[in-house]
């Protein structure tokens, strides 16, 4: 609302009076005029204060060797030393895994992935080419290729995978399983009429427990000596076998615990999204005689896809940081089989090797950012655009 313009030059008294009466309005107007900044400023300022200094400081640490001493700390600049140690130095086996010569299946996979990526890039270049778009896709492709090479040189050729490979396993296998089960439960729950509130609260329970607590709960659950399934375990003839001594079994148990904890998150958000899908659309589909699969694919999925993409992005980011469960359930064992990257950094940090901890964290950051930016640009934004259209 505009302040009424005085028609003629007012006397002094009038000005004072109108100013006094307009003061609250003026303040409201000031707020309103600057609303576009006032809305976003608190969040941005807080994040800036809390992110810039720690980010820069930890980046400095990643390039240094730090020692805490009385009343001070000493920092020695070591260049890329900390990163070199992880990628090519004494920590390579720990970080990347035991690199061996490619086996035939590894060659097949590498060539297949390379061909796929090339096909994707060429396809993009032919249709809608921009410099930034191409650059972004090149980085994405390079990262995917590098990860494929790493997996081919370790897992597919019979070598040990390092903490990077283990983390990727947790992220991709874990998140896929969680998404499928979470979506399935949300769909089921949105279909039923009675007891929905009950299931919603019950399914949400695991998320309420502190992650450390979940680690301990699952350590109890998975104890094959005195845990609740011990009898079943013995009866199945597995008395002499321990999941904690087998790398893949141990990783699987961690994924089970992680899923127990995080499926509720996906479930709740997707259920909220499903419930906001307009009912008339679905009913119209039913009247037209569409099968439930068709209704899901043509009506429901496009409606919930943007939320699903957001939820998965958040979940993937958290999954890259998985640390409490392997730390408590196996402490990274057997050997280094269940050690995630964050746990790797955490161990270094606990032993006060701050430089290594920061270097590992930044390598993790790099992988996560490239993968998440790709996911965001290629999936989330596209879903949102489809929704807007």
């Amino acid at each position, binding site marked *: 609302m505009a302040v009424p313009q005085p028609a003629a030059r007012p006397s002094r008294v009038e000005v004072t009076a109108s100013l006094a009466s307009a003061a609250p309005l003026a303040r409201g107007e000031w707020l309103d005029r600057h609303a576009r900044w006032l809305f976003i400023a608190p969040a941005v300022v807080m994040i800036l204060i809390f992110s810039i200094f720690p980010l820069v400081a930890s980046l400095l640490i990643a390039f240094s060797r730090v020692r*805490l001493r*009385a009343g001070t700390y000493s920092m020695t600049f070591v260049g890329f030393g900390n990163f070199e140690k992880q990628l090519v130095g004494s920590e390579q086996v720990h970080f990347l895994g035991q690199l061996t010569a490619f086996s035939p299946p590894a060659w097949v996979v590498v060539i297949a992935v390379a061909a796929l990526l090339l096909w994707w890039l060429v396809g993009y270049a032919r249709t809608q080419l921009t410099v930034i778009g191409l650059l972004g896709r090149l980085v994405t492709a390079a990262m995917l290729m590098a990860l494929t090479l790493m997996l081919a040189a370790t897992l597919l050729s019979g070598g040990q995978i390092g903490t990077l490979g283990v983390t990727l396993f947790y992220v991709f296998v874990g998140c896929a399983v969680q998404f499928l089960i979470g979506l399935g439960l949300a769909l089921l729950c949105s279909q039923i009429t009675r007891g929905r509130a009950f299931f919603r609260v019950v399914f949400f329970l695991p998320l309420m427990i502190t992650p450390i607590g979940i680690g301990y709960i699952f350590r109890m659950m998975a104890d094959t000596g005195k845990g609740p399934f011990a009898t079943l375990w013995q009866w199945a003839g597995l008395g002499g076998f321990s999941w*904690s*001594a087998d790398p893949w079994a141990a990783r699987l148990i961690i994924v089970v615990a992680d899923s127990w904890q995080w499926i509720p998150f996906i479930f709740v958000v997707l259920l909220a999204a499903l419930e906001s899908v307009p009912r008339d659309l679905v009913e119209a589909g039913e009247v037209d005689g569409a099968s439930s699969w068709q209704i899901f694919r043509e009506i429901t999925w496009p409606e919930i896809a943007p939320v699903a993409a957001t939820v998965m992005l958040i979940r993937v980011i958290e999954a890259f940081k998985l640390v409490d469960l392997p730390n408590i359930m196996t402490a*990274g064992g057997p050997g*280094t*089989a269940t050690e995630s990257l964050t746990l790797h950094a955490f*161990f270094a940090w606990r032993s006060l090797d701050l430089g290594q901890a920061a270097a590992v964290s930044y390598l993790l950051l790099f992988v996560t950012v490239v993968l998440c930016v790709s996911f965001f640009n290629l999936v989330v934004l596209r879903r949102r655009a489809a929704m807007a259209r």
Partner: protein
Amino acid sequence: MRNRTLAGGLLGGAAIAVALAVATPVRADKPYDGVTINLLTRPGPVIAGRLEERGREFTEMTGAKVEVATVPFADLFQKVLTDWSTGTNSIDVSVLSSGWVVELYDAGLLADLSDFVAKDDKLKVDDIAPYFREFNQKVDGKTVAITVDGDFQMMYYRTDVLGELGMAPPRTWDDYLAIAKAAHGKDMNGDGEPDYGSCMFKKRNAQGYYAIMSLAAQFVQSKGTSQGIFFNTDDMTPMVNNEAWAKAFEIYKATTEFGPPDELNHDIGDTRALVLAGRCAMALDWGDIGPLSIDETSSKIKDKVGAVIMPGTTRVLDWETGKLVDCTAEICPHAIDGVNHAPFAAFGGWTGVINAKADPKVIEATYAFLSYMNQPEQSNIDVTIGWTGYNPYRISQFENVEPWVEAGFSREFAENYLKAIGDSLNSPNMAGDLRIPGTQRYQGIVLDRELARMLAGEVTIEQALQNIHEGWEEITEEFGREEQLKLYRASLGLGAS
């Protein structure tokens, strides 16, 4: 930070109180009235519980208030170091692992307590067992820590199981393996299920590496505590890539065959639970099993358990060649009946250290409190109680059976248990834990990880030892070889080389 101003206010109050105390003789018996001691340790009841109880007594006596705060064990060192090195100084005293003392001392964070100890006649410093008096409490000849708990590992065995088998308690590791093999699969607690010959904690990033060091010490160290088990004391070359450590790794791996199937994921808590449930014929542990075994709410093995000094060996490392050689009187001067024992002060025990930056009056009061904890009148009772987590470190604690019998031990078991403790503590060949800067990295990262990988079959023993050698050299280079050598020698009671 409000804490400091509060403490400051209290100190002002204390000054007035002291002034009053001079004026009014009634208050003279409470020298530290108004002083607040902020103590940080690991959560109770273990360790912290007794500190709180004794703290209340201490307040009664001296007027100083003892505020006990706790953080989880695994994060304690980080927390203390950060608080003191960044100048936050919200903590006056911490009761922590003696393994961290040298690193804190090296960073210049610890108050020198030598003068206090010299003037303290209640402490009865000569009664403290030599290893704890000379190595655990001192760095560079200065007393900077006060022991409240003595930690070293012993071997426990089931008297009934070994009796049935007609076997004597193990003297060497060959004996140990033989007994474990014979006992494995027998039912030891009457539930009809087969039990285990040997229980050892092997979980990663837990206590697994203490067991391997306990084992290796037997083969590496034969010439007394000052020899050490980790590095060459002339040039800091790791003494790890040799037949002695290889043998220790072999035995460690071999015991897995006679243990529970998920032993690789057992930390000491899991192992103790099994021992107390009567499922293990033998176990390696600190002194705690003794008092814990007589507590019938958690134990099924009361009066069925015995203890001996850590099994030893007749073949020890020749430091020149890296090979194992037979013991002779010259090579193994401390051998008992030809068997070399090197009881390992794993972890070293809980000790109190005082912030050098604390107020002098607070330092004085804090010393008085730590001394109170350590004095025989208090500690000789505390060590007989299982839940305190305190284990013996004084000579009078294992020479006098009576307090133990009063605490509920049978006389026979008390004598057996105290003999094992005495044998260990009196041994001039006691092996000390590593106590130099970067200890957590040498042990907790490199040794622990390679050990776990070896057990999981990711690497062979030779590769693991080679990796440890290289990893340790890398850490030494990073911290500075000269500096590390100086401190390593200091921690072994040796002067400059």
